């Protein structure tokens, strides 16, 4: 294995550049190094102005999502040796506005996430001294969707979101479904009102790439298809059953 590898990093300084460019750096190629180690090496030793987000270094915080050779990846979970002999192209996540270098503006997602109401909604809260019990089987219903770390790789992989920024997107819908399936929650109809429309679940055309790139195996594509089935069933019930019988 070669001892060094070239990293091509997309650079953009809003105060100076009209459009992003690319800078190349040579870093040591170590078996245990991930792309994030290479970026930190560049920042510490070669170019201190390189800007990128990172925090936990262990695939938990979801901060270091980037395009690595055109594929959305967590920089902390992507080994350099898998790309040897290189070069490795590192770019900001697709479909989001670039603020600087590898940092993107995720405000659009945060607004959409709030519309999904990803919290437990109760019609009537229990008194403070009473608990909400849940069996392991009830936990299993939604556990997979609760693994989402909001890294937004699914948005970078979704061409529908890239073509139509009004689309709520994979993670926001998967998180809505996570709470719909929670036995303690009573807010499914509220969420359905805000997500059963062309910008919500019906905007998804099941490309499936969101599920393939998800580092936590959340399967947002599955969550959306299940949500569609629920929405269609609810619509049918509203059409067939007499008013008030739902």
């Amino acid at each position, binding site marked *: 294995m070669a001892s060094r590898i070239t990293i091509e990093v997309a650079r*953009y300084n*809003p105060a100076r*550049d009209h*459009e*992003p460019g690319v800078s190349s750096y040579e870093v040591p190629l170590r078996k245990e190094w991930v792309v994030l180690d290479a970026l930190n090496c560049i920042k510490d030793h070669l170019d201190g102005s390189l800007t990128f987000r990172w925090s936990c270094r262990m695939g938990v915080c979801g901060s270091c999502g980037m395009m690595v050779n*055109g594929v959305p990846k967590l920089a902390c979970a992507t080994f350099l040796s898998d790309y040897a002999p290189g070069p490795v192209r590192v770019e900001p996540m*697709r*479909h989001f*506005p*670039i*603020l600087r270098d590898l940092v993107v*503006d995720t*405000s*659009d997602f*945060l*607004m959409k996430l*709030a519309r999904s109401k990803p919290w437990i909604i109760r019609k009537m809260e229990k008194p403070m001294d009473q608990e909400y019990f849940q069996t*392991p*089987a009830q936990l*299993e219903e939604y556990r997979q969707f609760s693994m989402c770390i909001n890294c937004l790789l699914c948005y970078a992989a979704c*061409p529908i979101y*890239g*073509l139509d920024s009004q689309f709520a997107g994979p993670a926001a819908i998967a998180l809505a479904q996570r709470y719909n399936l929670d036995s303690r929650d009573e807010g499914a109809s509220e969420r359905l009102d805000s997500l059963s429309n062309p910008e919500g679940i019906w905007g998804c*055309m*099941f*490309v*499936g*790439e969101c599920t*393939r790139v998800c580092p936590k195996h959340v*399967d947002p*594509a*599955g969550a959306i*298809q*299940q949500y*569609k*089935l629920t929405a269609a069933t609810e619509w049918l019930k509203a059409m067939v059953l007499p008013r008030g019988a739902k």
Partner: protein
Amino acid sequence: MINPTEYLPKSYHRRMSTYWWLARWSYLTFILREASSVFVGWTVLLTLVQIWAVTHGPSANAAFHEWMRHPLMLGVNVVAFLFVLFHAVTWFSLTPKAMVIRVKGQRVPDWAISGPNYAAWVMVSLGIAWVVLRG
């Protein structure tokens, strides 16, 4: 609600390439699946024309069969058949994604949901083939 983008500095917005669907195999198969809807529509239309021909006597039926023997029609229908087949396979692959069935707390594997769909498809196809080809 406060718009969080209001106070952000200048940002660079990228445009998607016209040829984005060629960038990955999954994007290409997605586009082909969407395009297959045209051929599904064509097949439905052709079936309706065939029913019309059958109900309008032997001469209309013979004219329909003559039209179908044209090399151009044969070519179009071979392509349409392949696309309809592809469309059906993608549809059956979707069923385990949309339907979650648990037995004794365990989610049943994908093949246990798509398998019966494929089996029903084969049975119905064999039934239709028997009705059409028996006489």
